[in-house]
C-alpha cells in the first residue's frame, strides 16, 4: 500500500498518554504539504498544531474532534492520490488491528534531581547519551515542562537536558541570587555536577539571558524571546504571575504568553498554581523580579555581551510577543541569526516547536 | 519554708487585694451597674495566694468560674480586671470575656472558666508545653468540689500521671457546688482518688495561708524537678453565694458569720505573723489602706471607662479568617 501514510495521535511531550483532535484543519480530500498543519491536537495541558509527516491529501479523518484517544491511535490517513477507498479501508483495518496502546505512562522518563553546590537541580534527560549535549533553560516562572514539544524533537539529535532553574519546578527553592549572573552560576554548577562539558544552550526569556551569560562555554546558543536585549518587559505579566492565586486569574495572566490564548489547557493553569504554592516559590519569584525587573524595566542589558560572543547564535522571536517585544531582536550583530515567527507569542518553543527545532539544529550545525 | 518579710508583705497585700476587690464587687453588683453574674472568691484567699506565691510568671494556672482571686494572686492588673467586670473596652479582655473569662496569658493566667471542670485538661496542656520545650515551668489546675466530680478532672489527673506532667491539681473544696454540699456530692475521699491515679496528695486547712503555701510549695517543687503531678485537697469556705444574688438558704443561718469570726484567713495570717513578731500591725494596716485606695481607683476608672465600640463585636474571633 505504497503512498498511504498513517496520521497517529502524536506524543506531544514525554508524559502525554492521550489526546484528542480539537479540530481538523483540512477537509477530507484536501491537499496537504509536508509540514503543513492538518489538525489541532488538544491535551489537558495545551492545544498544538499537528504537522503532516508527508505530502498528499487528507483522505480520511478517522477520529472525530473531541474524542480522547491514546497516543499512537490512528486519527487520519494521508495518501498521494492513487489509492482507492477499498485500499484505505484495508489500511485502516490493518492499522487498528496492529495498534497496541503503550503501557500507561510507564515508559515516560522521569525527571531526576542532581545534587549541586547550590542545592538540588531537577533535570529531565532525553536523547542518546553519546550525542552532543544540549541544555534547555526555561524562563521566569516556567519549568522543564515548557520544553515538552521541543525536547523530543531535539532528542533525536542531542543528549538533551531540560533543567529547572533554582526557585522553579523541582529544583531548590533557595536562590543563589536572583540576577542573571547568579542564575547562570547555578546552571554552571549543575553542568559541573552532572559532568557536562561545552554544550549547546537553548534558553527562553529569562533563561535566554542566563544562557547568554554562559555563552563562552557553549557550543551554540539559541535564544527564544530572551531577556536582556532591551528595557521593556510586561510587568502586568510578571506582577500578575506572582499575584495570581486562582485558576481564572492565572489563566488570564498565562494568556499573555500565547498569540492564541485558547491553547492554554486547564492542566497548564493548575500546574502553574501548584508550583506557586510550594514553599519558597513566592519569595524566589519576588527576588528574581526585584533583581531583574525593578521599576518595571529590565535593568541589565546583555546586548554588548551578545555582540562579543563567537559561537553560532540564533535569536528567535514571536512577532506577537506580549511579554518582551520582538523589536528587541532588531539591530543585533550580523553574526546572529534572527528568526521571527508570525502570529506567535512569547512561547515560540510551544507555539512553533517544529519550526524552531529545525532552526536550532541548523545553528548547532553551523 | 521560711518566708522573708517582703514575701509576707506581698502575701498579705495579695490576699487583702482579693478580699477588698470581692467586697467591692459585691457592693457594686447590688447597685445593678455590673452586667451578668459574678462568683466571688472572698474567704478563699489563702488558697490562691498560698499556691501562687510558689509560682513565677512563666508558670501557668487554669482557673474556675470563681476566678478573681486566682487572677490577682497570679499578678493580673486589678484595674484591668475591674474594667473587664464592668464590660469596658479597657478591661483585661477588652470587655469580651467578663468575670468568668478573665485571662492574662503574659502572666500565665490561662483564664477563669465558665465550664466547671474545664480547666484541668488545659493545665495538662500547659504542663505538656513545659515538658516538651523543657522550660522548667509548671502548671496548676484550680478546681472546686464540683469540678472534682467531673470526668475532665479524672481524665486530666490520669493523663498527668501517665505522661508524668509537671502539674499540680488544687481542689478548693468550699463545701458547696452551687447549692449542693460536697459532703454529699463527693463519693469517697478525693485524696484516695488522687492516690488511685498514682498522684501524691495532701489535705490542708485552706484557711491557713502558711499550710497551703508549704504544701503547694512541696508539690510544685516536685513537679518542677520532674517528679510528676501533685494534688492538694484544700478545705475552705466562701463568704458569698455561688453567684451574687444567691440567698444561700442552703447554708446554716450562722455559718458564714462564724467562719468570718473564727476561720478568716486574713485574721489567721495577722495573728500568726503578730505572734511570731514577723510583721507589726502598722505595716499590715498600711497595706490595707493602700489596697483600699487601689480598689477605689480601679472601680472609679472602670465606671468611667468607655464601652467597646460596635466594631469590636466582629474582631478577635480568629487570628486570620
Amino acid at each position: 500500500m505504497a503512498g498511504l501514510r498513517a496520521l497517529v495521535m502524536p506524543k506531544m511531550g514525554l508524559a502525554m498518554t492521550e489526546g484528542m483532535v480539537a479540530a481538523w484543519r483540512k477537509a477530507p480530500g484536501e491537499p496537504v504539504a509536508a509540514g503543513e498543519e492538518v489538525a489541532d491536537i488538544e491535551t489537558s495541558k495545551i492545544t498544538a498544531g499537528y504537522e503532516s509527516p508527508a505530502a498528499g491529501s487528507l483522505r480520511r479523518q478517522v477520529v472525530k474532534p473531541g474524542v480522547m484517544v491514546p497516543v499512537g491511535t490512528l486519527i487520519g490517513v494521508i495518501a498521494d492520490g492513487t489509492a482507492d477507498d477499498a485500499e484505505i479501508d484495508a489500511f485502516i483495518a490493518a492499522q487498528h488491528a496492529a495498534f497496541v496502546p503503550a503501557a500507561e505512562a510507564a515508559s515516560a522518563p522521569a525527571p531526576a534531581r542532581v545534587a549541586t553546590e547550590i542545592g538540588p537541580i531537577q533535570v529531565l534527560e532525553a536523547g542518546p547519551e553519546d550525542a552532543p549535549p544540549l541544555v534547555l533553560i526555561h524562563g521566569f516562572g516556567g519549568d522543564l515542562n515548557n520544553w515538552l514539544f521541543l525536547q523530543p524533537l531535539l532528542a533525536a539529535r542531542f543528549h538533551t537536558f531540560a533543567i529547572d532553574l533554582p526557585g522553579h519546578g523541582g529544583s531548590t527553592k533557595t536562590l543563589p541570587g536572583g540576577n542573571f549572573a547568579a542564575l547562570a552560576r547555578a546552571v554552571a554548577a549543575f553542568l559541573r555536577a552532572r559532568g557536562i562539558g561545552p554544550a549547546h544552550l537553548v534558553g527562553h526569556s529569562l533563561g535566554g539571558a542566563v544562557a547568554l551569560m554562559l555563552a563562552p562555554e557553549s557550543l551554540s546558543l539559541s535564544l527564544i524571546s530572551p531577556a536582556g536585549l532591551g528595557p521593556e518587559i510586561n510587568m502586568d505579566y510578571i506582577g500578575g504571575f506572582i499575584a495570581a492565586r486562582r485558576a481564572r486569574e492565572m489563566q488570564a495572566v498565562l494568556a499573555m504568553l500565547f498569540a492564541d490564548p485558547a491553547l492554554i489547557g486547564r492542566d497548564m493553569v493548575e500546574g502553574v498554581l501548584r508550583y506557586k504554592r510550594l514553599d519558597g516559590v513566592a519569595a524566589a519569584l519576588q527576588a528574581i523580579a526585584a533583581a531583574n525587573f525593578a521599576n518595571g524595566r529590565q535593568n541589565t542589558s546583555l546586548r554588548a555581551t551578545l555582540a562579543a560572543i563567537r559561537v553560532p547564535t540564533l535569536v528567535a522571536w514571536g512577532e506577537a510577543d506580549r511579554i518582551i517585544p520582538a523589536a528587541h531582536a532588531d539591530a543585533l550583530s550580523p553574526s546572529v541569526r534572527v528568526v521571527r515567527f508570525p502570529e506567535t507569542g512569547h512561547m515560540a518553543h510551544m507555539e512553533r516547536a517544529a519550526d524552531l527545532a529545525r532552526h536550532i539544529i541548523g545553528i548547532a550545525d553551523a | 519554708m521560711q518566708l522573708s518579710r517582703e514575701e509576707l508583705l506581698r502575701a498579705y497585700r495579695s490576699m487583702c487585694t482579693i478580699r477588698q476587690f470581692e467586697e467591692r464587687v459585691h457592693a457594686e453588683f447590688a447597685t445593678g451597674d455590673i452586667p451578668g453574674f459574678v462568683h466571688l472568691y472572698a474567704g478563699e484567699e489563702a488558697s490562691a495566694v498560698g499556691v501562687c506565691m510558689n509560682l513565677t510568671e512563666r508558670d501557668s494556672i487554669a482557673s474556675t468560674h470563681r476566678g478573681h482571686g486566682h487572677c490577682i494572686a497570679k499578678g493580673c492588673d486589678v484595674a484591668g480586671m475591674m474594667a473587664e467586670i464592668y464590660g469596658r473596652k479597657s478591661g483585661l479582655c477588652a470587655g469580651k470575656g467578663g468575670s468568668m473569662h478573665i485571662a492574662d496569658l503574659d502572666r500565665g493566667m490561662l483564664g477563669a472558666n465558665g465550664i466547671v471542670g474545664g480547666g484541668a485538661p488545659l493545665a495538662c496542656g500547659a504542663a505538656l508545653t513545659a515538658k516538651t520545650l523543657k522550660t522548667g515551668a509548671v502548671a496548676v489546675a484550680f478546681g472546686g468540689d464540683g469540678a472534682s466530680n467531673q470526668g475532665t478532672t479524672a481524665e486530666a489527673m490520669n493523663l498527668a500521671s501517665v505522661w508524668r506532667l509537671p502539674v499540680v491539681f488544687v481542689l478548693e473544696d468550699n463545701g458547696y457546688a452551687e447549692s449542693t454540699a460536697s459532703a454529699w456530692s463527693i463519693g469517697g475521699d478525693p485524696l484516695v482518688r488522687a492516690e488511685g491515679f498514682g498522684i501524691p496528695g495532701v489535705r490542708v486547712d485552706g484557711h491557713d495561708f502558711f499550710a497551703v503555701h508549704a504544701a503547694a510549695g512541696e508539690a510544685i517543687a516536685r513537679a518542677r524537678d520532674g517528679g510528676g503531678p501533685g494534688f492538694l485537697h484544700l478545705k475552705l469556705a466562701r463568704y458569698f453565694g455561688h453567684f451574687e444574688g444567691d440567698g444561700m438558704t442552703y447554708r446554716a443561718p450562722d455559718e458564714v458569720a462564724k467562719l468570718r469570726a473564727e476561720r478568716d484567713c486574713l485574721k489567721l495570717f495577722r495573728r500568726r505573723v503578730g505572734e511570731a513578731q514577723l510583721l507589726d500591725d502598722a505595716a499590715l494596716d498600711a497595706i490595707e489602706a493602700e489596697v483600699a485606695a487601689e480598689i477605689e481607683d480601679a472601680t472609679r476608672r472602670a465606671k468611667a471607662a468607655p464601652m467597646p465600640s460596635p466594631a469590636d463585636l466582629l474582631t478577635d474571633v480568629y487570628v486570620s479568617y
Partner: protein
Amino acid sequence: MARKSFRQAVNEAIRQEMARDPRVIVMGEDIAGGMGAPGEDDAWGGPLGVTKGLMPQFGRERVLDTPITESGFIGAAAGAALTGLRPVADLMFVDFMGVCFDQIFNQAAKFKYMFGGKARTPLVIRTMYGAGFRAASQHSQCLYPLFTHVPGLKVVIPSSPYEAKGLMIEAIRDDDPVIFFEHKMLYDVEDEVPDEPYTLPFGEANLTREGDDATIVAFGRMVMLANEAADQLGAQGISCTVIDPRTTSPLDIETILEEVRATGRLVVVDEASPRCNMASDIAAQVAERAFEALKAPIRRVSPPHTPVPFSPALEDLYLPDVEKIISAVRAVMAAGGRKAA
C-alpha cells in the same frame, strides 16, 4: 512528584511540618501504638496507619500516645496550643466529639475572643468522618456542620490527596484551631502529590469542573462523586461547574454566588445529615443573595434524617451517590419556571 495515597499525603504533611518546626507535636489514641505493650513500637501508627513512622523519626516526646481519654488529651492539646506548642491531635472518629466537645467549642474555639484577642491557639484536630465503611451509627457521621456552626473554629474537608497535603500544612501553620476532616473512604485514593511542602489557602474554593448549565457544590468525598456526575452529564450535553469549597469555615460563598449567577442552577451535595447541614446553609445564603439569578429551585443531595445504618443494603441506600447527583441536576435542568423574560 509521585502518586501518593490520601493517607501518605497527610502523613507527609505532618512529617514535613514536624521536621520544620520543633513545636509541632502529634498526640492521640494509638497514634504510634503499642505504648507500654510488650510487642512492637509504632504498632499501629493511628487506627488506619496515617501517622505510621512518625514516632520512630521524632520520638515519643513529640509523638504522644494517649490513654482513651478524649476530653483529657483534646483539652491538653488546647492548653498546649495556648502556651506555645502546635499540637496535631487525633480525635480518631469525629463521632467521639460527643465526649470532648466542651474542650473544643467552649475552650479552644473561644480563647481568642473571650480573652480580648490576646490568645493564639494553633491547634489542629484531625478526625475521621463519613459513611461507607459499614461502621454503623457511632463511627460514620460527618458532623462538620456542628463545628462549622461554632465561631472561632476553622473547618477543613479535603477532597483528594493533593488537597489533603496542602491543607494539612496550612492547618498546622495556622494560628487558629482547625478541625481537619479525613474521609475514611478516601485514604487509599491516589493522586499526584508534590514531594515538597506546599500550602492551600483556607476560604478559597476550587473549581474542579467548569460548565455553563448548573453549579454543583460538594464537600470532601462527595467532590469525587460530583466530578463523576458532571463528567457523565457532560457526555449527555449538560455541562456543570463543580465547586469544592475546601473549607466550610471560612466558606468561600463569593465563588459559589459567582458560579450560581453564571449558571442559574444550584445542586449542593453534602454527606452530612440533612437538617442544618452545609447544603442548607449554602442554599439559604444563595437564596438570600442570588435569588434573582436562580432559574430553578435549589436542590440538596443529602442522606435522609436517620442515623447511619449498618447493613450494606441500607447504608448504600443512605449515602448520596453519582446517580442521585445526576438526577438532582436533571431536576434543576427540567425546572424552567423562572427563566428570565
